């Protein structure tokens, strides 16, 4: 997928965006505080996380069985199920349906999977008016930007920028207060909701026992997407399954609390079929597209647990790297720790090799994960893979090799330190930091500064202090 410009360039651009940096600090702090409060209120958070982890592990272990049960029940409920092995197959199914329905307006409730497969692009090429209806998604759609956060895709945008985007569309200057901007969106999107031929939503949980799709929003846009359009399409990753309603309780108890610090999101829709004979509103057709797109590749590997993810985004909110660079610098639909892993596993580690290295391995993601995914361990594993596959820069490999040889030979190590200091002295800035290193050090200093080795090495100091060798 698109990965231009290079990761280093994307990061550089992100770091220069002062507004975004400020916004990211605010987003992280607000979501974290909210979640921390909910964890405290619940009192037994870890028990919920442990159970969620057990449920998710059980689902993956039996995924073929539950998908069979789910899809059979969806069909029993009057829905149509399409199994898409690839993003391309999903796109073909959806675009064919759009053609069949002579679709002019296609309303979408937030779906990260549709970002993953770049669905909008395909629909727009057919001349269809595709309207993202989640406020955040709508903003980034107008700005032609990818999502910056799994939960809040436009949280990096300032109200000035948003007002500017909406004003262009309105053809007049809109003030930048929240009520004005919100009203504009309500007014602009309402007719689209009412006139659209097709409405699409994602799927937070697919309940196998009753063939129901559970979609959560705060704005009510998923509800809106299913009221008027003749057809409702659900696009879901195949791992979204929960076995039954008791399991849904566990996952739904965790999701909003971990995502935004809400005890419950405003709207939780349970869709169990197309409209029935006596119904006045609702879609005549209900299509459920179940997507693999690389997920089954992960099943047989040590990374299987990454499919436990319920997309709460908590790992982003606790990540020090995400805090600095934001979601767009990752370059993949999903960002943060979960995004770094999914990019390598769903797509190709050759393309996304930089992402696992953009991590401090602090473990905050793992500690706060709603379903107990060992995210930092997976990131470390992916680094190992990247190195083993020879994907790291040549100079870094040489430097690491040299260090490992030197470190296992004390005499050589000491000599190296002395030479190193004299070579590097001339390159340090006034703070004793090297921003642009020579030779093999250049790759390192592209991402981070390197300290000038100390005047007196630890080993010298130890000797002088009379320590034992």
């Amino acid at each position, binding site marked *: 997928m698109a990965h231009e410009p290079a990761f280093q360039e994307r990061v550089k651009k992100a770091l220069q965006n002062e507004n975004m940096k400020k916004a990211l600090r605010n987003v992280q702090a*607000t979501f974290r505080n909210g979640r921390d409060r909910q964890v405290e209120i619940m009192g037994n958070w870890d*028990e919920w996380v*442990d159970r969620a982890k*057990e449920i998710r592990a*059980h689902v993956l*272990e039996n*995924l*073929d*069985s539950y998908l069979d*049960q789910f899809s059979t029940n969806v069909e029993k*409920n009057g829905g149509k199920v399409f*199994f898409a092995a690839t993003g391309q*197959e999903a796109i073909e199914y959806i675009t064919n349906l759009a053609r069949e329905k002579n679709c002019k307006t296609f309303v979408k409730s937030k779906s990260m999977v549709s970002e993953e497969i770049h669905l909008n692009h395909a629909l727009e090429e057919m001349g269809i008016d595709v309207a993202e209806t989640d*406020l*955040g998604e709508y*903003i980034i759609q107008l700005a032609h930007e990818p999502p910056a956060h799994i939960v*809040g895709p436009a*949280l990096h945008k300032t*109200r000035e920028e*948003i007002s500017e985007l909406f004003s262009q569309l309105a053809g007049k200057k809109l003030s930048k207060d*929240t009520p004005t*901007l*919100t009203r504009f*969106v309500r007014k602009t999107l*309402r007719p689209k*909701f009412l006139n659209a031929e097709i409405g699409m939503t994602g799927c937070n949980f697919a309940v196998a*026992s*009753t063939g129901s799709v559970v979609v959560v929003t705060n*704005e*009510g846009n998923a*509800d*809106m997407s*299913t*009221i008027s359009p003749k057809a409702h399409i659900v696009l879901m990753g*195949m791992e979204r399954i929960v*076995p*039954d309603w*008791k399991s*849904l*309780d*566990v996952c739904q*108890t965790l999701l909003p609390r971990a995502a935004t610090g809400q*005890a*419950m999101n*405003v*709207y*939780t*829709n*349970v869709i*169990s079929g*197309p409209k*029935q004979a*006596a*119904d*006045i509103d*609702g879609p005549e057709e209900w299509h459920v597209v*179940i997507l*693999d797109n690389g997920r*089954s590749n992960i099943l*047989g590997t040590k990374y299987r647990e990454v499919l436990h993810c319920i997309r709460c985004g908590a790992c982003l909110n606790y990540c020090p790297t995400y805090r600095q660079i934001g979601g767009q610098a990752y370059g993949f639909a999903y960002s943060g720790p979960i995004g770094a892993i999914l990019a390598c596993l769903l797509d190709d580690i050759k393309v996304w090799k930089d992402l696992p290295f953009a991590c401090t391995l602090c473990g905050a993601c793992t500690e706060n994960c709603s379903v107990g995914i060992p995210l930092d361990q997976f990131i470390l594993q992916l680094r190992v893979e990247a190195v083993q596959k020879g994907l790291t820069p040549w100079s870094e490999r040489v430097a690491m090799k040299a260090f490992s040889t030197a470190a296992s030979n004390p005499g050589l190590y000491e000599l190296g330190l002395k030479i190193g200091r004299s070579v590097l002295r001339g390159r340090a800035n006034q703070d004793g930091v090297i921003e642009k290193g020579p030779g093999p050090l250049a790759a390192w200093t592209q991402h981070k500064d390197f300290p000038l080795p100390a005047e007196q090495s630890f080993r010298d100091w130890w000797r002088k202090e009379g320590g034992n060798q």
Partner: protein
Amino acid sequence: MATKEQFLDRIANRLGRERRTGARVPEWKNNPWDNLRDGPGNEGQVELFRKSLEALGGRFYQASGAEEIKEVLKEILEKEQVKSLVYNKDQRLLDLGLAHYLDEMGIETRVWDPAGNHEELKTFAEQADAGIVFADLGLAETATVLFYNGGPKGRSVSLLPPVFITFLRKRDMVPRLTQAVAHLEERAQKEGLPAYTNFVTGPSRSGDIEMDLSIGVHGPASAYVILLDP
């Protein structure tokens, strides 16, 4: 293009085993909700519901008897300057004598009746100032109301108008989601779920503009729950 069978075979293959059917959830010894919240129907739950709803910007009323119901409704409708209103043809609402009150207040109303003109009803609901519905359950912990929609209970009624008014019987109050999903499961087994069941927790909201709270994005900006006791 993969068929269902190929799709599921691949999963089994990746899991390193034969295809499996009839998986069952393990019987867990303990559940995380075992010690949460007290039993249904008591004042603690009502208080919790009220507090949670108000924290979300919703408004909570209690009413017993025809006189109080009428007073509360009047207060809300006047405050919101409601001139037109749509409500579900729900026997529980009809039993409250709603038609009569609304008529007295001079409000233009439509009843969400499958026997009526569907297109006209939908257009009316979209233009109406308020919608009135009757909740099937209330979840105390989160101030959530549950609706089994379908037929004379339209999804549009609670969603399209800017003011959303829900009646809830005190005996339909449960501690939390745990009891609600049990209710859902039971209903699914007995009569099947309607095409559309929804949980609503306060007014429509978003934090997508600089994390600043905005209310009434696509759904209603005002949410009222009137608890009926008895």
